[in-house]
């Protein structure tokens, strides 16, 4: 059996990859993908803890599915926004929309 720590190491790696991508990338789509990585790390933890700690129950699994659904919807919204930004600013770089600060 694969030890729990292996899953946790994987999810931690995924999480920090996501954060790293979010912080370093300037492309809006790349940032969105990075955020998805962070979410996936969390989903994986849910699934793993449910499978190992409470094998007879399914709440963790359902929650994971629920979270995936939510993130799909959220991705749709984010993509719509990104398309609008691209149409208005002719750029997909995050620092191109700085003037929305003021």
């Amino acid at each position: 059996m694969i030890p729990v720590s292996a899953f946790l190491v994987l999810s931690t790696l995924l999480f920090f990859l996501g954060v790293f991508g979010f912080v370093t990338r300037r492309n809006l789509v790349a940032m969105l993908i990075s955020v998805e990585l962070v979410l996936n790390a969390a989903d994986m933890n849910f699934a793993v803890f449910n499978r190992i700690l409470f094998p007879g129950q399914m709440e963790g699994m359902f929650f994971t599915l629920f979270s995936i659904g939510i993130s799909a919807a959220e991705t749709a919204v984010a993509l719509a926004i990104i398309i609008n930004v691209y149409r208005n600013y002719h750029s997909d770089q995050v620092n191109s929309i700085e003037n929305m600060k003021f």
Partner: protein
Amino acid sequence: MEYSYSFLILLLPFLSFLVLGLCGMKMKEKVAFGIGTTVLGVLWCLSLYTAYEYFFAVGRDAAGLYPTVTAFNLTWLDFGKAPLFGTELIFNIGFRLTPISVMMLVVITTVSFMVHIYSLGYMAERDEEYRVEGYEKGFQRFYAFLSLFTMSMLGLVVATNIFQMYLFWELVGVCSYLLIGFYYPKHAAVHASKKAFIVTRFADLFFLIGILFYSYYVGTFNFDLNADPTIANRLPMAVNILPVALFLMFIGGAGKSAMFPLHIWLPDAMEGPTPVSALIHAATMVVAGVFQVASLMPIWLKYAPNTLHYVAYIAAFTAFYAAAVACTQRDIKRGLAFSTISQIAYMLVALGVCSAVEGEGSVGYMASMFHLFTHAMFKALLFLCSGAIIVIIGSNFKDYMGGLHKYMPITNWCFFFACLCISGIPPFSGFFSKDEIVAACFHFSPFLGWFMTLVSGMTAFYMFRLYYVIFWGKSYYEADPENRRKPQEVPAIMWGPLVFLCIVGCLCGLIPFGHFVSLDGHAEDIAIQTFAIWTWPSVAWVSIVVAIIGIGLATWMYKSGENPVPDMLKRRMPKLHEAALQRFYIDDAWQFFTHKIVFGLFSKPIAWFDRRVIDGTFNFLAWGTQTAGETIRPWQSGDVRQYAAWFITGTVALTLVLLCIL
């Protein structure tokens, strides 16, 4: 209820002010004139009707006195029970009729009505042939201010309490300021209006302090201390403070009535249009101080009879001083202004010599009010005459006049009769009122009587000097008829009011004034009118002789136009002449006092403290906030990735710290 129309007397001029002030600029000048003058005409009729009703139709009550009627008395501000004050603190505004306030209603509306009519002629712009070309800029504003002034002055004289009087007193001061500064592009007018406002405001500060003392210790703002029984309990405590309070109030009155040394604003106030000088600075507003002292006279006599005599001394000195200065002035309006100061001083002398002595002690009160009445008429007339001359000549200075009697016959006669009135020649009005004052002074002390007789001789001298240099002597026009404008008589819209005031001014001395206004309310005969003191050597004869000497001297010195005697006197006593011309340097003394002492010793350190310490504190606070903001602002970059980086770094750091501790 009686006098139920009386609210109109205050409301109508106020409405007229609002209409003319708000929509005046959209009206034609004639319409504005029509509105203002119609309202004043109605007011005049209402005042005359009130006087008729008060003195004749209703008349004396059972005790043989003219009752004090309060037509209405509205609560303006109600502070309820005031802990400091001890009693209820309520400010009322109302309408109170006493013999003197009814008399003032008639005086104010008569003069104001005449001035309203006259101003249509005065405020016109004329071409070389004196044809009306148009009206001066701000003509409608002028009428709006006149209405406001009339309203405030009427509110002052019908005040039911001292606080209402103070309120309208200040309003009157504002109107005076606005009208003196009417020609605001002119520097002199702006300076004069500021001077008038600041000097009278300074004096009003004492009035306010006096009111506070009075109301704090007595517990009421009313003029009548006997009305309320609760006041009687407080009076024993108040008797020591009452003389101080009354004298402080008198200082306020001295500011408005231009008593030495607060007289400096009045001669400069002549920068305003001449009808304003006639209405405000000769006939009505400047007697506010006299009216105030007269209104409080019962309290003065009962609680501060000795302090009252200081009023007489101050006023007597002012009368002499102003008469001396008036003898040298080259600007005819300034000459008249000093004569106004002198005459108002006469009224205050008469009030100041009043005493509680039965009979002779009360002569002064009646004489003062009588002189106020007659003086208002003939001094308004003198000013309106001088306005007529200024319209024709285009200057205030006597050098451009001379020999006008040929060209302006009506103005000439009106001015002549007014001079006779003020000089005290029988049977003109000034004789009766002024000699009654002199008689009251003789009752008080022979020295003061002789002193005031001397001043009345000076009055005759300077008035006739003015008359001769304007209407006789060398004509400025005839010296160079080719290049100079030929003077002519003013139009009827201007000489009409002159003639009316002349008739009233000459005849009003025959009114048995003592039957209407007297200190104790009972009818009192004017000694001179009943020929009781005509036996030689009486006051009347002495003052007639003195007046004739004054007139004779003026005739001898100024009639010919050569002026050898005055020139010789000027050469002999250059210092005295210069000093009199410069008003004995009182203005300079005030200038020194305000600039060197007040500004130098008090204002400058206070200004330094304000700028460095108070402003510095707030500037530091503002600077600190701004600097902090500038420092923090870059942290709020709005860059999501940066926030995320900080957030993650912080979380990791916190986790490591917690791990280390636990």
